């Protein structure tokens, strides 16, 4: 796949967030300079811009077992971040705390400087924080296209009264969303399977489907939980290319949990290593992976 796969024209839905997607001045580190991150962020932008996402002191215990134990991380606007760690290190639990599927026992999460710790998952999603799941949660009995359309930001067609009383308005909005969905389907190479039931897709296609679904939200930040798991090497390359492209053109930041270190290393500019609920290393991917503590804890000294 080349840049040809990119849909023409504006990818974001019309009237979407006035965030600085394109043309925002970006420093070498990927931080926008001065450009307000969101309409309400102008005042904060005058001071030092707050990080896009910041988690501090996150704790989550299941019974007596601390799956996430005092975890902190920070993601800048437009940054690509990786999280690695052994099975059971607490990575997915950390995602659930950030995206709101789980409530933390302690700690807080901010998005663009606003405390979102107590918001519901859907409120967080509407603020531009979207996620995918380690085990894909596709809508099995809906077509691939309908999976994307189901994620379209709140439309009048989702209220009972409009469905019956304003059918024309509903149809018009639906047509607009369908056009956006069509472009994402093409972008993700899913157009050929758009009419299949999502349950029939391969594992890799389901990962793409979940990405397409969250793209419908025009998010600022996407959390991907193991996007390469069970995906063939060719498709891994393709998904990586898509992530880079979305990052460059749409300004979407990503946090990516992966066990595939090779693919991840090439993608991200910042890496966190988790072990037994804690962050044991963070920073430049190559440097972090070379760290002796990481080698011992994560690889059990294999490398």
């Amino acid at each position, binding site marked *: 796949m080349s840049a040809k796969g990119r849909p023409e024209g504006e990818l974001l839905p019309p009237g979407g967030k006035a965030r600085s997607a394109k043309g925002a001045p970006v420093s070498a580190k990927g931080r926008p300079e001065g450009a307000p991150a969101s309409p309400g962020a102008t005042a904060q932008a005058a001071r030092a811009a707050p990080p896009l996402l910041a988690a501090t002191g996150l704790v989550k215990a299941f019974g007596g077992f601390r799956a996430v134990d005092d975890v902190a991380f920070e993601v800048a606007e437009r940054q690509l971040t990786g999280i690695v760690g052994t099975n059971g290190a607490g990575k997915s639990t950390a995602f659930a705390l950030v995206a709101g599927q789980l409530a933390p026992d302690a700690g807080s999460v901010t998005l663009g400087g606003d405390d979102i710790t107590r918001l519901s998952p859907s409120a967080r999603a509407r603020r531009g924080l979207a996620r995918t799941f380690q085990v894909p949660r596709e809508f099995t009995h*809906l077509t691939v296209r309908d999976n994307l*359309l189901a994620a379209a930001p709140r439309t009048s067609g989702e209220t009972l009264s409009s469905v019956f009383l304003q059918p024309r308005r509903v149809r018009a909005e639906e047509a607009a969303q369908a056009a956006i969905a069509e472009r994402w389907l093409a972008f993700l190479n899913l157009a050929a399977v758009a009419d299949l039931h999502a349950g029939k897709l391969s594992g890799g296609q389901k990962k793409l489907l979940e990405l397409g679904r969250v793209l419908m939200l025009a998010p600022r930040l996407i959390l991907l939980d193991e996007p390469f798991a069970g995906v063939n090497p060719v498709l891994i390359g393709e998904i990586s290319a898509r992530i880079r492209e979305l990052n460059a053109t749409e300004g979407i930041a990503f946090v990516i949990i992966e066990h595939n270190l090779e693919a991840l290393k090439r993608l991200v500019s910042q890496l966190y290593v988790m072990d037994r609920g804690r962050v044991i290393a963070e920073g430049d991917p190559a440097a972090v992976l070379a760290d002796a503590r990481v080698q011992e804890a994560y690889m059990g000294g294999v490398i």
Partner: protein
Amino acid sequence: MTAYLVAVGIVALIYMLLTLGLNLQYGYTGLINFGHVAFFAIGAYASALLTLSGWPMAPAFAVGTLLAGLAAWPIGLLSLRLSDDYLAVVTLGFSEAVRITIQEERWLTKGVQGLPGIPRMFQSLGIGEYAEIATLALLVVVNAAAVALVVHLVRSPYGRLIQAIRDDEVAVEALGKHPARLKVQVFMVGAALAGLAGGFYAHFITYLSPDQFLPLVTFYVWIAMIIGGPGRTAGAVAGATILMVFLEGSRFTRELVPGVSEVQLASVRIAMIGLALILMTLYRPQGIFGERKE
């Protein structure tokens, strides 16, 4: 014979309305409702009592339908907090609570004695036996309208979202949606359809007593839905028809097989239905009309 067929047709169409309601709840939205008969009972008793106290039939129907829908509101709210298995128990319990309330509140419902003399539909027109045919025709129209409404609903973005909720509610929430509002609404709409069915039942049977509203009715509606295939509107229609053919057909077997009592036959009937259900789940879990899944 015509009168008999008309009567069977009326009951089948009443079951069809019930099935359309349950199918919207379970088939499309994944909401477990083992208390469907409660809303049927509320619609039936409300409409019966109002017409007996002198109301015209149309507003009595409307109030019965509305009350049934409203009665589902607290259950819908409860469904947000309960897992499927608990919801199954709670809805079943609710329907028994409704039945026992009807049984105990004699001042209103005459209890087990029952409520006789409920006005028959179209009786006042003085068209004699054609009143039943008119009822049948009206039920056909009402069912057609209900099917049209359900089809329009499930093909809308609203319908897509309720099916998404059925498939994966966590994902729906992660996409910025509020499943709660839709679940409560669907519970109420499905219950209102059951209430409407109850109105037709009351004014067709003309006599109501609590023992007509046992959980067995809910069970039959589930069977009709499963036969047709949950999440298929055409399936609900076919399922209710097949159920009725089966229930009525088994009535004739008594004449074919001498020496079987009514009670024995009732047990045999339930056993047969159980067997049919097992075979369905084994060989056609998607229902008769559902498409085959790989």
